[in-house]
C-alpha cells in the first residue's frame, strides 16, 4: 500500500483551478474546465488528486495561498462530487487503471471534522460509492474492513456524519455484507452488533440513533441470521424509543421499521399491534413535521394492504384509525389560505409552459423501478391555488382510507358515516370538501354498502358542484366519477342528472375545476355502455367537447384529448363529430412542432378518432400519415445514430409509440383503403416494415406492443404479399417475444405478438417456420410452472386454432396430444364472443381433434366443454362436415351428457341434416 503517495504541487494547483472554473457562472469557462477535467479522468492518479482536494482542500498551504476561502470550500465539495461521479461512471475504475490507494486510506478524514456539513456529507457519499463500486468487487481488499471499523469507531465517539455515511452504505450495499470479505470476515455480524449498540446506548445522539435504525431498516429485508437473532432486542429498543423519544427523525425511522417488519416479520408485530397503531396515530395526530406524520400514515397504509394481516387483526383498530384519517383529509392551514386567496375565476388565463410539467417519459420511469420521485403524480402544478402537487398527509390519509375500505367496507363505512354525517353540511368549506373527498375515497371499496345513502347523496353531490368554493366543485366532480360504476350499473336514473351537472362544470370558471370535470367525463365515458352514449349522450357530449375546445387552455386540453379519444373508442363518430371535433384537433396538430410532447396525447386522440371515423377520415389521412411516419422515422434514425455517437440525443419513446399507434389507427379506420397510403404500389416502398422490424428490437415493451398491433392489422387488411420481404424477421421477433415472457409489464406486448402470429398463420402459409413456432406456442400453453394471464392463454388457444387451419398436423402429436390439454383449450376459448375469431379457432381445433383420431380419448368433461363452446357464437356452417364427423365419432358419449336446451338445439341442426 502506497500511503506514501504525495500529490504533485502543480497538478494540484491546476486541478483546483479547473474545479473552480467548472463552477463558474460563465458557461464558456465552465464548459472548458469540464472538458479539461474529462481529459484528466484518464490519468491514473486522478481519483487520488480529487480525494486530496476533498480532504486537504482547506489545509494545504499551497492552495490556501492561491484561492479564497470560499473557493477552497467549494472546491472540496466539487472535488468530492466529481470523484463520486467518476467512480460511478461505466468502467470508471477500469478505464484509467486508477490508483485509489490514497482514496482508500484518507477518505475517512473527510468525516473527522463534521462541523463542515457539506464536506462530511460529500465524503459520506464518496465512501458509499467506494463500497458500491470498488469494494463490492474487491471484497478481499483489507482496507474495506479498516474503513468500516474506522467508521464504527467514529460513530461510537459520537460522530454523526459517520452515522449518516454508514446508513447510506447500508442502503446501497447491505446485502453484500452477508458475504465473506477480507480476512474471512462476514461484516454483517459485527455491523449489526455495533448498530444495535448505537440504538440502545443512552450516550448516542438522536441523529446517530435515527441513522442506526435506518441501517437496520435496510437489513431487515435481507432476513439475515445476524439480525434475526437480535430481532427481539431491536423491537424492545424501538418500542422504548417510541415511548421516550420526541425526536422526529427517530420517530420517522421507527415508523419505517414497523412498515418493513410488517412486510418481512409480521409475526413479530402481531402481539404489539395495539401499541404500534396507537403510536402511529399519536404521531399523525400530534407531530408538527408532516414528513414524520406521512411515514406514520404510510405504516397504516401498509398495515391495511398487507397480505400478512388478516382482516380480523385489522378490524379492532378501524374505530381508532378511521377518525384520524378523516381528520387529516382536511386541507392544512396553508393550503386553505392559498385556496381562499385564489378562488377567483381563472379560466381565461393562459397556462404558462412552465406550469405544465413535462410529461415524464413514463417508460423510462417505469423501468427505473425506484423512480427518483413522483414527478408524474398529478401532472398539475400550475399557478398558486394548486397546492396539490406533492405527496402529503392528506393524500396519504385518503389513500389509506381507500384501501382500508376495500378491506373492511362495512366497518369503515359505519364508523366513517357517523363522522361524515356531522360534517357533510359544515359551514366550513374545507370541512365539506374533505367530506366529499372521503366519500370518493370510500367509493371503490364500499360502493355496495352505500346503496342506502347514494340516492340522496348523489343529488347532494350535484348540489355541491354549484358551491362557491372551487375546491368543493372540483372534488364533487371526482367523487361523482368514483360512483360511476354504481350509477351505470342499475342506477342509470342518476346518469343524466349527474352528467348534466358535470357537463356544465366542464366550462367552470376555474381551471382546476374544469380539469376535474373533464377527467370525470372521461371516467364516465370509459365505464358507460356504448349504447347509452349512443342513444342518450352522444350529442350532448359532442357539444360539450366543442365548448371545451373553445375555452380550454393548454393543460386541460391534454385531458380533453384523452376524453375525446375514449369517446371515439366507444362510439362510431358521425358527421357532426367531424364538424365539431376534427377541426379543433387538426388545427392543434398543425400548430405543434414535431418534437412537442403535446403531440402524444393528441396523436393518441387522433388515432382513436381516425379509427372511429373510418372512411370519413380519408381526406385527412395522407397528411396525418405522412407526419406520423416522419416522426417515427426521425426517432428511429436518431436511435441508430446514437448507437455510434453517444452525443446524439434520442427522443422519448412516446414519440415512437404514439406515431405507431396513429398509423395503426389509420389502418383500422380505413382498412384496405389505407394500403396505398402505407405501401404505395408505384414506389413499392416498404420502408415502414423495416422501421417496424427495427422497433421490435426495442427493449421498451410498449414499443413492441404497438409494433405487433400494427403488424397484425397490416396482415389482416392488406395483401399478405407485402410481408414477403420481412416475414422471416417478424416471425423471429414474435418467437423471441413469446419465449421471453417473464416480465409482467410485457404482457400486453406478448399478447399482441401471439395475436399477430395467429393472423399471420391464418393468411400466410408458415411452411418451414410452423414447426418452431408451434413448439414455442405450445411450450407456453402447456407450461404448468408459471401462472399465465388469462388473456394470454386465451390468445394462445386462438392462435393454435388459426395455425391449425393450414397445419393441423403439428398439433396431433407431442404435448398437445392429450385430453387434459384439449380440455384446457376448450376452457380458454369457450366464452369468446367475437364470431369470426371464435369460428376460426374452433375450425382449426376440430381439425386437430379429427386428425388426432384415437390417440386421445376425449373425456366427457372435455366433450361437454367443446359442445358448449361450439354452440354459441360460432359459424359452424363454415366447417359443418368436420363438426359432424366429430359428433358422429362421439355420438354415444354425447347421449350420456347433460346438455342445456341451447346445446341440444345446436346438435339438432346436425341430426336433421
Amino acid at each position, binding site marked *: 500500500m502506497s500511503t506514501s503517495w504525495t500529490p504533485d504541487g502543480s497538478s494540484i494547483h491546476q486541478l483546483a483551478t479547473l474545479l473552480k472554473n467548472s463552477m463558474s457562472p460563465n458557461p464558456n469557462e465552465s464548459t472548458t474546465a469540464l472538458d479539461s477535467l474529462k481529459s484528466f479522468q484518464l490519468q491514473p492518479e486522478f481519483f487520488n488528486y480529487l480525494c486530496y482536494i476533498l480532504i486537504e482542500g482547506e489545509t494545504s498551504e499551497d492552495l490556501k495561498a492561491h484561492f479564497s476561502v470560499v473557493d477552497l470550500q467549494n472546491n472540496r465539495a466539487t472535488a468530492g462530487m466529481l470523484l463520486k461521479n467518476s467512480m460511478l461512471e461505466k468502467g470508471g475504475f477500469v478505464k484509467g487503471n486508477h490508483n485509489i490507494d490514497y482514496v482508500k486510506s484518507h477518505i475517512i478524514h473527510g468525516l473527522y471534522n463534521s462541523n463542515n456539513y457539506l464536506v462530511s456529507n460529500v465524503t459520506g457519499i464518496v465512501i458509499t460509492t467506494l463500497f458500491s463500486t470498488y469494494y463490492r468487487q474487491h471484497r478481499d481488499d483489507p482496507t474495506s474492513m479498516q474503513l468500516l471499523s474506522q467508521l464504527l469507531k467514529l460513530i461510537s465517539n459520537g460522530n454523526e456524519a459517520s452515522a449518516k455515511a454508514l446508513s447510506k452504505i447500508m442502503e446501497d450495499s447491505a446485502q453484500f455484507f452477508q458475504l465473506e470479505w477480507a480476512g474471512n470476515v462476514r461484516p454483517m455480524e459485527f455491523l449489526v452488533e455495533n448498530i444495535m449498540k448505537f440504538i440502545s446506548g443512552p450516550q448516542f445522539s438522536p441523529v446517530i440513533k435515527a441513522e442506526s435504525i435506518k441501517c437496520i431498516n435496510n437489513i431487515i429485508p435481507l432476513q439475515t441470521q445476524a439480525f434475526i437473532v437480535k430481532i427481539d432486542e431491536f423491537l424492545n429498543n424501538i418500542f422504548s424509543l417510541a415511548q421516550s423519544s420526541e425526536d422526529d427523525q427517530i420517530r420517522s425511522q421507527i415508523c419505517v421499521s414497523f412498515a418493513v417488519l410488517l412486510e418481512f416479520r409480521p409475526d413479530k408485530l402481531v402481539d404489539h399491534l395495539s401499541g404500534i397503531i396507537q403510536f402511529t396515530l399519536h404521531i399523525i395526530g400530534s407531530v408538527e413535521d408532516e414528513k414524520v406524520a406521512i411515514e406514520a400514515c404510510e405504516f397504516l397504509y401498509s398495515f391495511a394492504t398487507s397480505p400478512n394481516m388478516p382482516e380480523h387483526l385489522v378490524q379492532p383498530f378501524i374505530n381508532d384509525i378511521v377518525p384520524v384519517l378523516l381528520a387529516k383529509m382536511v386541507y392544512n*392551514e396553508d393550503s386553505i389560505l392559498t385556496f381562499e386567496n385564489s378562488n377567483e375565476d381563472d379560466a381565461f388565463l393562459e397556462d404558462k409552459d412552465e406550469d405544465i410539467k413535462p410529461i415524464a417519459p413514463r417508460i423510462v420511469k417505469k423501468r427505473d423501478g425506484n423512480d427518483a420521485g413522483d414527478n408524474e403524480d398529478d401532472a398539475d402544478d400550475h399557478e398558486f391555488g394548486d397546492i396539490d402537487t406533492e405527496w402529503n398527509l392528506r393524500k396519504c390519509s385518503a389513500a389509506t382510507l381507500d384501501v382500508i375500505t376495500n378491506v373492511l367496507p362495512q366497518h369503515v363505512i359505519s364508523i366513517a358515516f357517523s363522522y361524515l354525517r356531522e360534517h357533510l353540511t359544515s359551514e366550513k368549506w374545507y370541512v365539506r370538501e374533505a367530506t366529499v373527498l372521503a366519500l370518493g375515497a370510500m367509493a371503490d371499496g364500499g360502493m355496495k354498502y352505500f346503496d*342506502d345513502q347514494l340516492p*340522496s347523496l348523489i343529488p347532494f353531490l350535484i348540489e355541491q358542484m354549484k358551491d*362557491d368554493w372551487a375546491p368543493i366543485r372540483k372534488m364533487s366532480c371526482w367523487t361523482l366519477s368514483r360512483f360511476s360504476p354504481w350509477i351505470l350499473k342499475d342506477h342509470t*336514473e342518476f346518469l343524466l*342528472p349527474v352528467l348534466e351537472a358535470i357537463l356544465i362544470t366542464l366550462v367552470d370558471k376555474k381551471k382546476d375545476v374544469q380539469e376535474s370535470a373533464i377527467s370525470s367525463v372521461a371516467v364516465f365515458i370509459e365505464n358507460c355502455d356504448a349504447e347509452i352514449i349512443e342513444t342518450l349522450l352522444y350529442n350532448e357530449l359532442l357539444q360539450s367537447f366543442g365548448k371545451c375546445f373553445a375555452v380550454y387552455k393548454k393543460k386541460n386540453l391534454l385531458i380533453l384529448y384523452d376524453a375525446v379519444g375514449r369517446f371515439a373508442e366507444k362510439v362510431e363518430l358521425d358527421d357532426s363529430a367531424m364538424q365539431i371535433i376534427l377541426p379543433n384537433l387538426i388545427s392543434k396538430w398543425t400548430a405543434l412542432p414535431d418534437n412537442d410532447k403535446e403531440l402524444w*396525447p393528441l396523436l393518441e386522440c387522433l388515432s382513436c378518432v381516425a379509427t372511429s371515423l373510418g372512411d370519413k377520415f380519408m381526406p385527412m389521412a395522407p397528411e396525418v400519415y405522412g407526419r406520423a411516419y416522419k416522426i417515427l422515422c426521425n426517432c428511429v434514425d436518431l436511435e441508430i445514430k446514437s448507437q455510434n455517437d453517444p452525443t446524439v440525443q434520442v427522443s422519448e419513446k412516446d414519440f415512437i409509440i404514439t406515431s405507431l399507434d396513429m398509423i395503426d389507427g389509420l389502418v383500422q379506420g380505413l382498412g384496405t383503403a389505407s394500403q396505398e397510403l402505407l405501401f404505395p404500389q408505384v414506389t413499392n416502398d416498404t420502408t415502414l416494415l423495416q422501421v417496424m422490424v427495427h422497433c421490435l428490437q426495442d427493449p421498451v415493451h410498449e414499443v413492441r406492443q404497438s409494433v405487433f*398491433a400494427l403488424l397484425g392489422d397490416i396482415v389482416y387488411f392488406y395483401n399478405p404479399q407485402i410481408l414477403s420481404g420481412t416475414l422471416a424477421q417478424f416471425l423471429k421477433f414474435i418467437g423471441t417475444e413469446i419465449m421471453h415472457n417473464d416480465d409482467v409489464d410485457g404482457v400486453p406486448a406478448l399478447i399482441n405478438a401471439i395475436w399477430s402470429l395467429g393472423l399471420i398463420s391464418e393468411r400466410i402459409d408458415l411452411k418451414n417456420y410452423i414447426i418452431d413456432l408451434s413448439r414455442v406456442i405450445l411450450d407456453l400453453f402447456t407450461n404448468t410452472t408459471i401462472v399465465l394471464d388469462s388473456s394470454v392463454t386465451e390468445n394462445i388457444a386462438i392462435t393454435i386454432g388459426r395455425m391449425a387451419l393450414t397445419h393441423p398436423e403439428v398439433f396431433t402429436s407431442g404435448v398437445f396430444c392429450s385430453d387434459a390439454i384439449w380440455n384446457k383449450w376448450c376452457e380458454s376459448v369457450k366464452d369468446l364472443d367475437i364470431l369470426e375469431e371464435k369460428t376460426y379457432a374452433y375450425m382449426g381445433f376440430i381439425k386437430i381433434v379429427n386428425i388426432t383420431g384415437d390417440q386421445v380419448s376425449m373425456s366427457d368433461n372435455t366433450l361437454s366443454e367443446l359442445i358448449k363452446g361450439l354452440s354459441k357464437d360460432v359459424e359452424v356452417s363454415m366447417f359443418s362436415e368436420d363438426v359432424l364427423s366429430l359428433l358422429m365419432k362421439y355420438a354415444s358419449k354425447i347421449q350420456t351428457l347433460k346438455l342445456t336446451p341451447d346445446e341440444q338445439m345446436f346438435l339438432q341442426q346436425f341430426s336433421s341434416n
Partner: protein
Amino acid sequence: MNSEDEDFNDIYGNDEEQTTQKGTVVAQESANVEDVEKPKEAEKETASSSLDQLAALQALSSNLTNLANQGSSTESVTPKAVGESNESNSNDDASASVNNQDVSSTNQSTPGMPAGNNLPWDQLRQTMSQFQPPMPQQQQQQQPPQMNNDSQRKVKADLSKDSCKMFIGGLNWETTEDTLRDYFNKYGSVVELKIMKDNNTGRSRGFGFLTFENASSVDEVVKTQHILDGKVIDPKRAIPREEQDKTGKIFVGGIGADVRPKEFEEFFAQYGTIIDAQLMLDKDTGRSRGFGFVTYDSPDAVDRVCQSKYIEFKGKQIEIKRAEPRNNQKASGQTNNMNNMNNGMGNMNMMYQNPMMGGFNPMYNQQAMTDYYQQMQQYYQQMQQQTGVDYSQMFQQQMQMMMPGMNPGAAGADPSKPGQPMGGSPSSNSATPQDNNDVQTLGNEQNKMEDKHGLPKGPRRPSAGSSDYDRYNDNDDYQYRGGNTGRRLNHRIGSNKNNYRGSGRGGRRSHGYHPYNR
C-alpha cells in the same frame, strides 16, 4: 404580461392608468381642500390598488379607535380590543368609517385617505361629521346601540386579531426568501416566512406566506403597492381561520356595463367595511360583465345591504344576493337570536339538512328536489321516445325507492305546494337508513346489484378492469387501461368491419385528475 398581472388587472381594473391619473388630481384637490397633512403620502397611495385603499381605511379606522381610546381612556388599549372599542363608540365610530367611505363615493375623491394619526381626535371627528351617514332609517331603528354592540362583538370579523400573517402572491419566480425578507423587514420584524416551492423542481411557485411580529406591520404593508424583483406583488391579509366565518359575502347582479371596479367598491363600502370587492370584468373589453362579489367583515353589513333585494346604483336596479354558503344564511331579523342560539340551532339545522340522515329534508332544498324529479321524468320520457321502451313503471319504481311514501305521479306537481310532492315534512320523512332499506331492497344486499330488472341497460360488454382507471395503485393506470389488453376487446362497436384487433394502444397516460395519486 403574465397571469398574475392579468389577474391583477382583471380584478382591480385595467383602467388603473386612467384612474390613477384622475385619482391623483382629485386626491391633490381634496388634499388641498381638506388641508390634510401629508399630501405626498396621499399621492403615493392613489397609485395603489383599491384593496390598498381599503386597507388604508381600515388602518384609519383603527387609528381612530386608538385615538378614541386615548380620549375616553376608559377602554383598554390592547390591539385585540379594537373590534370591541369600535363598537363601544358605536355609531360614532361605525359611522366614522362609513363616513369615510362615503366621502369617496359621493365626492369621487380621497382614495386612500391619509392616516389621521397626526390629527387631534376632535378635529378629525369634526371633519368626518360633515358627512352624515346615509344609513337607512330602518336600520337605525332595528339596531339600537346596545343591541348593536352585543351582536357585533360576537359576529364581526376581527381583522386585527392574530392577523400578523400574510399571503404574498404574484412573486417573481426568482424572488428568494432572503430577498422577500429583506423587502418586508422595513415594515417590521418578520418572524416567519416561506415561499412555496415545487417539490420536484424546487422552483418557486410564485407565492408564499409571511408572519410579522406585529399586526401593525400588516396594516402598513397593505397600504401600498409593492414591487419586488420587477414584479407587482400581491400581499393579502390572511384572515385568521375562526374569523373567516364571521365575514359575509354577497353577490351583486344587474350592474351596468359602465360601472368601474372602483365605483363598485366605493358604492358598497357605505354598508360596511369591505374585505374584498370584485367586479367581474370581460377580459376582452375590460367592461363590467354585470355582476360581482363583495365580502364584508361582518354579517351585519350583509344584512344591511340585503335589506332590499334591489338597490339603485348608477341608474340601474341592481340585484343583491347572499353568496355565502347556504347554511350561513340567516333570516335577517333573527340575527341576534340566531347568534345567541348558535350552537343549538346550528346543529339542528345541520341534522335536518344532512342527506345522510335518510332522505332529504324538503325544507333544505325542496325546489331542487322537485326540479330534479321533474327532470328525471323528462329523461325517462326522452328515453322512451328514443328506445321505444315503456319506462313509466320503472320510473315509478325508482321514485318509490328513492322517496319512500311518495306518489311518483306527483313528482311533477306544482312546486308551489311544498311538502306534498316530496313526501312530507321532516317529521314524516323521518326515514332512517333502515327505513329506506326496507323499501328499497328488492333482494338481499348482495343481490341488489343484480336483482334490479328493467333498467335501461344495453347488452354489456366485458369491461374488465375499467374501474381500475382511477385506482390508487397507479401501476395499472399507465399500462393498459380499461382492460384493453385482450385482443378481443373490440373498439368498433356498431361497425361491421373487422371486429377484432390487437390492443395497439399501450394504454394512455392518465392525465386526469385524482386527488391522491402518488
